[in-house]
């Protein structure tokens, strides 16, 4: 009965009720959106690399090493020698290694020199391997395999010829123009930095730099692409390498051996641990974002509170009528609390609708512009928790006008003097 009365009363004040519902709905949609982004960002972050036991580079910070080797952000301070790499590649507990050589770029995308093992051992998400959308691994010295974003943004297809720039800024004249590469494979989308990488062989990287020294071409010395093929293209140094062990249990042991390697200062990190450290670094911003969106919900509920408080005066007569037919003051209290709870419930449901529709509408655009792959799933525990929490908070806030109405009705009795 009380709930029917509460609904009838709300319907009677449609215009303000709808505005208030939208205030709550928009705040809830924002909260849902932020939480979704947070969760997906964290998931895609943690999914960047998997089944790699160690990442090894020159000694620096573990987060820096993770950033340049896995996320391809920033630069290595120094390289590690090919000999040191070979030393650990042949370690009895090491099952596989994948060398990584960074430093060049192509039109804003990083160029990674690696071995063909990269396509076999690199895993992301829950252990998914890289797959080819088109084409295959690089075979020839001047073959390149590009990530999904590279192909999409540059409009490249198989057979496309590309010139790699020296360094990370493509300023036109510093390119390895004499040794163009050819796209032989396009990888399927992974949602990781692989999508934004151009992969070539280590020998390819060497060939490009064979007539360069200290970052500039050696004057008067030019070696053509074909001449380079005849030369020794074994690299002298690489930037980092990934390691898979025969047994995960030995990870700490091998890590210590690498860290204590006497011939060269090197560092090995456990990617999972470093990822967690990096995420913790960002958690301040993440928490601030969450706090702001919770505050917006609080503002929405404050709007509801003022809306209900505004109706109290004009509804005193209604309350007196209800009292005259036998309503107890506690039922008047319940009526107002119910009303606020209904605001919360329907506001949240409407908010979920707004959020879902916006996500559907913006999903393509987010993917195109920011590479964010947000999928609308069925409501999960997050959505249910928010629905419950907002409805509960609204009910709690509703107790303020409910208490005022309760006090009024005790003082007014049957006669209301306004």
């Amino acid at each position, binding site marked *: 009965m009380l709930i029917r009365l509460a609904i009838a009363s709300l319907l009677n004040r449609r215009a303000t009720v709808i505005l208030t519902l939208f205030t709550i709905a928009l705040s809830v949609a924002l909260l849902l959106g932020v939480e979704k982004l947070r969760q997906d960002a964290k998931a895609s972050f943690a999914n960047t690399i998997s089944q790699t036991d160690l990442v090894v580079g020159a000694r620096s910070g573990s987060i820096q090493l993770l950033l340049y080797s896995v996320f391809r952000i920033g630069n290595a301070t120094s390289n590690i020698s090919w000999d040191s790499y070979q030393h650990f590649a042949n370690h009895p507990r090491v099952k596989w290694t994948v060398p990584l050589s960074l430093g060049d770029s192509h039109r804003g995308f990083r160029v990674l020199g690696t071995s063909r093992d990269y396509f076999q051992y690199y895993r992301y998400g829950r252990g998914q391997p890289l797959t080819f959308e088109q084409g295959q691994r690089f075979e020839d010295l001047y073959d390149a395999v590009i990530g999904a974003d590279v192909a999409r943004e540059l409009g490249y297809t198989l057979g496309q010829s590309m010139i790699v720039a020296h360094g990370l800024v493509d300023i036109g004249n510093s390119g390895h123009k004499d040794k163009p590469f050819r796209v032989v494979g396009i990888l399927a989308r992974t949602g990781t930095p692989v999508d934004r990488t151009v992969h070539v062989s280590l020998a390819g990287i060497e060939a490009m730099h064979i007539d360069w020294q200290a970052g500039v071409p050696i004057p008067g010395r030019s070696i053509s692409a074909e001449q380079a093929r005849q030369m020794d293209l074994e690299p002298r140094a690489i930037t980092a390498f990934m390691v898979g062990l025969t047994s995960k249990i030995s990870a700490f042991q091998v890590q210590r051996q690498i860290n204590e390697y006497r011939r060269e200062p090197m560092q090995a990190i456990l990617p999972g641990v470093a990822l967690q450290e990096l995420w913790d670094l960002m958690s301040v911003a993440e928490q601030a974002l969450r706090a702001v969106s919770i505050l917006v919900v609080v503002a929405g509920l404050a709007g509801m509170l003022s809306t209900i408080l505004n109706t109290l005066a004009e509804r005193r007569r209604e309350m007196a009528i209800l009292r005259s037919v*036998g309503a*107890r003051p*506690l039922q008047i209290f319940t009526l107002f609390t119910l009303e606020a709870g209904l605001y919360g419930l329907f506001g949240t449901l409407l908010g979920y609708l707004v959020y879902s529709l916006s996500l559907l509408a913006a999903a393509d655009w987010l993917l195109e512009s920011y590479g964010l792959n947000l999928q609308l799933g069925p409501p999960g525990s997050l959505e249910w928790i928010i629905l419950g929490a907002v409805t509960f908070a609204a009910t709690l806030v509703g107790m303020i006008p409910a208490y005022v109405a309760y006090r009024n009705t005790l003082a007014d009795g*049957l006669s209301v003097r306004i």
Partner: protein
Amino acid sequence: MASMDAALSHTVELSGLRYGWQPDNPLLEIEQLQVARGERLFIYGPSGSGKSTLLSLLGGLISPQQGRIQILGQAMTELGASARDRFRADHLGFVFQQFNLIPYLDPLDNITLALSFSRLRRQQLGDESPRQAAQRLLSALELDPDQVAGQPARQLSIGQQQRVAVARALIGKPELIIADEPTSSLDADSQARFLSLLFEQCQSQNSTLVFVSHDLRLADRFDRTLSLTDINRAADSQSSKAIAC
């Protein structure tokens, strides 16, 4: 045995009643007041006579500092606040001067509202459904239920609203109907017709009627007339105070 009979034959019995917001400044002081079962009592109550206070006391919304209020043999003064609310829902029907109805509910919902707080009054309907009972009462009060059905109460004329209010007071056969100036916003012809219908319905379901008004012209149609200014000694002292000032 004699007191039992008295309790059964009287719907309302007040004695030694004293009420005031501040205990040393009583608004209402009534030595004795009895209303017989089935009686139609007119109480003359101009403003300032303590009328609202008396009605709130009878309805059990407030409790006196002194004295005893007995309705249908039940001492209201011995009940807690929420038991008095339940008692009011079960046994009393109120009609006010105006603003009787929830403005956004239609007449039938307004009438059946009185049943939603009282199981006893729902049971009194017998085989009739709440809506049927409401429609029957509206027809008896000369208001076509089909004509007003579905209209929010605020769209009805004052005369129509007062009939809906009476139907709400009557539904489920409460023993005591308390009417507070229900006719003062009606014109003279409507007043007479309204009173006749009210009497008719009270009689047919054997309800006692306490009718408070400042309009003495209506008084001669009632079984008995009392002046609140006469029986309320507090009102005397207050008006004499007012004169002294």
